[in-house]
């Protein structure tokens, strides 16, 4: 222990109490490690938090649904015992349309589809679920490295090959063909209904820097489906109290297993000696020593910020520097005086997941604007009204609308300071189309642009996935070569955030994989 270090020594320090950091800490603690989690914010959760955005109105600040976290993780960590409850399960997905009845898409059935799309839909779903299921096991392990000759890496690659080969020749061929395709072509091959195409494509582009025509969007869609498949029958779920409740449960699981969590403890830098990470220094100057440091922060912040380029090689720094991290997904929160009425949506579905993504073309146009630092006047959105299920989030009789707005640029031409209010107006106007009268109900509005997400949650670029989820930043090369498998070039420093395989969304795989990796490496050493 260095002279400056204070307090008890830990085996592992986790930087950041985001959901992956908490998951990682929980698994490490369960394996008997002495773990400390440090969180800069006064509460745990990172971006999975419930915050008050207007007096009396609370909302899940980023992700607002839980549908990607695998069932086995929830049960391994016994999240229900740690207070996780759901205000709603299996929310239906409803594709809004101004021209016709909305399209209802949920796991079991589809309504409102004309033939031949109606029958094609079942086949498409089954086929995609099959592909997703073949990919899902990849999520549960560290990706292999190439060219090492190590048994584990070969085994990883062969397992990958076998997983795909097991689909049978025709399906394997189909997967190899569509794997790198764009979702636009895929959906054109299967369907003709623009509403259906738009709704299905929305899931492929959500959280990415892609339009439906961008190759690679089938991959992002399959990733989402793979995670959803393992998340079990609950479907789209709304934790009671918002996503912050999930984080509280994860924190509960971690502390129950023996981990310590300190909030309002921002890490200033990672301490290095003899080419090893040996702890962290807080902004307060306090030094905390540990055998291993795990960062839940995004790769750029972790490696270039907290660690610093001087401990890394130039080529590696170049790769991290070029990591694409600009987010394109924003959040709109409305405090409403009364319940909004989506005019075409039947009452029972008002509390569903409502999509504004009427066609592939619509999404593509939305995306086009963002390429030039603009946004479309016809935005794409995923809307929920959580207070319909969980009234405690707002004052009595009042409601909260939470919308994920896809396609707002990180850098707006003219800047977000001037552009914020006009953008809010555009978004509310777009909501007004589907929910007439909503403008009059708005008591307060909060828009979290990717830039705001960067600043509030310390995610460089404000990207959901801590870095674009594209082929060149995926699996074996995620986040960058040299920092795959949750380790970094620096001994004793690990990554466990969404920047690592398999990426973001409230899944917890990265945290769990990182913990397992650390435990395996320690066991080997």
């Amino acid at each position, binding site marked *: 222990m260095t002279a400056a270090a204070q307090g008890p020594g830990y085996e592992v320090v986790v930087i950041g109490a985001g959901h992956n950091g908490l998951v990682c800490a929980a698994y490490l603690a369960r394996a008997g490690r002495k773990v400390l989690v440090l969180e800069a914010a006064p509460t745990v959760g990172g971006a999975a938090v419930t915050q008050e955005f207007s007096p009396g109105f609370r909302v899940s600040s980023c992700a607002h649904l839980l549908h990607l976290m695998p069932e086995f993780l929830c049960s391994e960590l016994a999240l229900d015992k740690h207070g996780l409850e759901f205000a709603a399960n299996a929310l239906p997905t409803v594709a809004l349309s101004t021209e016709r009845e909305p399209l209802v898409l949920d796991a079991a059935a589809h309504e409102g589809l004309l033939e031949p799309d109606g029958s094609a839909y079942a086949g498409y779903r089954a086929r995609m679920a099959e592909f997703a299921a073949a990919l899902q096991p990849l999520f549960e392990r560290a990706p292999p490295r190439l060219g090492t000759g190590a048994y584990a890496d070969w085994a990883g690659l062969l397992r990958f090959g076998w997983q795909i080969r097991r689909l049978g020749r025709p399906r394997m061929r189909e997967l190899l063909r569509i794997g790198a395709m764009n979702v636009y072509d895929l959906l054109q091959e299967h369907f003709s209904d623009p509403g259906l195409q738009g709704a299905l494509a929305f899931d492929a582009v959500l959280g990415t820097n892609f339009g439906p025509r961008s190759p690679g969007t089938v991959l992002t869609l399959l990733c989402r489906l793979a995670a959803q498949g393992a998340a079990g029958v609950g479907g789209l779920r709304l934790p009671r109290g918002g996503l912050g409740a999930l984080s509280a449960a994860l924190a509960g699981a971690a502390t129950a297993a023996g981990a310590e969590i300190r909030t309002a403890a921002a890490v200033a830098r990672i301490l290095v000696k003899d*080419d090893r990470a040996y702890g962290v220094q807080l902004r307060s100057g306090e030094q905390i020593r540990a055998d291993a440091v795990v960062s839940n922060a995004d790769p750029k912040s972790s490696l*270039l910020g907290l660690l*610093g*380029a*001087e*401990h*890394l*090689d*130039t*080529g*590696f*720094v*170049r790769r991290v*520097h070029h990591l694409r991290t600009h987010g394109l997904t924003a959040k709109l929160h409305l405090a409403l005086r009364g319940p909004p009425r989506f005019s075409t949506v039947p009452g029972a579905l008002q509390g569903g997941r409502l999509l504004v993504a009427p066609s592939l073309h619509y999404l593509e146009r939305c995306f086009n604007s963002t390429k030039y630092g603009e946004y479309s006047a016809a935005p794409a959105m995923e809307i929920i009204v959580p207070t319909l299920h969980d009234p405690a989030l707002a004052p009595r009789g009042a409601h909260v609308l939470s919308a994920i707005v896809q396609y707002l640029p990180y850098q707006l031409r003219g800047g977000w300071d001037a552009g914020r209010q006009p953008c809010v107006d555009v978004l509310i106007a777009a909501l007004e189309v589907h929910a007439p009268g909503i403008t009059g109900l708005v008591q307060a509005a909060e828009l979290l642009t990717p830039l705001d997400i960067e600043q509030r949650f310390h995610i460089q670029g404000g990207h959901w996935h801590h870095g674009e989820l594209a082929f060149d930043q995926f699996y074996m090369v995620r986040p960058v070569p*040299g920092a795959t498998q949750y380790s970094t*070039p620096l001994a004793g420093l690990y990554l466990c955030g969404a920047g690592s395989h398999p990426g973001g969304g409230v899944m917890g795989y990265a945290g769990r994989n990182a913990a397992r990796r650390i435990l395996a490496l320690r066991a080997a050493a």
Partner: protein
Amino acid sequence: MSASAPPRTFFEQPLLKTPFHERSRAFSQLDSFVPWAGYTTVDVFSSVEQEYFAIRNSATLYDLTPMVKYRISGPDALRYLNRLVTRDVAKIRPGRVGYCVWCNDAGHLIDDGTIFCLAAGEYRLCTAERQLDWLLDSAIGFDVQLEEVTEQIAALALQGPTSCAVLRRRGLSGVEKLRPFEIGQFQAGPQALMVSRTGFTGDLGYELWMDPASAESQWDALMAAGGTRGVRPIGSRALNIARIEAGFLLPNVDFVSAEHTLRTGRDRSPLELGLAWLVDFGKGHFTGRRSLWKEQQRGVARQLVGLDIEGNKPAHHALLYAERAGDHEVGSVLSATWSPTCKRNIALAMVAAPHFRIGSTMWADIYLNRELVWERRMARALVVERPFFSPERRRATPPADF
């Protein structure tokens, strides 16, 4: 340039001319110019032999201007350089020069060069090839300013046993006190002149750094000062013989920069190039350190060595074999020359383990073209210490007044 001809644009004449170009042209008998780092420079003035002998026996002027120069300054300049190169730059004090190499992440050599510590936090890096791309990417995360100043500084190498005497006659009093790798500031006529006791010949010699505007007058003054001491301009061919004798490496001849190789496995590490003495594992992190450390732990698979080869036919590009029958290839020759000073047939070669040990023998497969008939010789080659030639005068301070 004649007044009537319109100036040619750079796409018609891509190579730059150094400030010494007109002087060089005036001395050139063979009109033998070659490109170097974007400049046109002299390959041979009159005869390689005469120019070479002047390096070892009198004094020579070599136009060094194309050497790429970077000014590196700012609060993090030292930290930056220490992360860049493999040796400890903190040991290069103000007023000193250090030879250094830098590597990519895999610990493979990108280039070599010299670092001049002009003052605390103020450095100049001289390299044979342009490196701005790598240098700037290395600057991510450092508070450092980088500027290429190649065109702002003209440079001449004054090398040879009488070089010190020539400088003194030129009026640089005190220049004899400069120790090897030391920098001095002098007044030469009306102009300031920076002198470093460095060079690429392995002999007593200096490198002179000046304002391009004063280049021609300095040249003239040095030529005049060197009259009785035999100063003559030399080209790259003569210098190449001297540098092989001195055991210095030449990019693209003895190694290909890891930034340029197209084929996997063609990169070389400083350990392989016999530059282990430049790698300081104890100074903290630098790019390539982790890879080099691993390489050092497991031992290098090949190494650059000096060879003394029987006969007098330079073993250019020769393949090396373990036995005379030529069945078991163990390496190949990179640079080869007949050494007129040592009267030895010498070469630098890359040789596989374990054949690179001093005292190992092997066979060089030499091809000779004798009046258009190719002949093949298997010549015995012995691994010997480098440099092949290292006279006492190279180190003596003050140097003897020849």
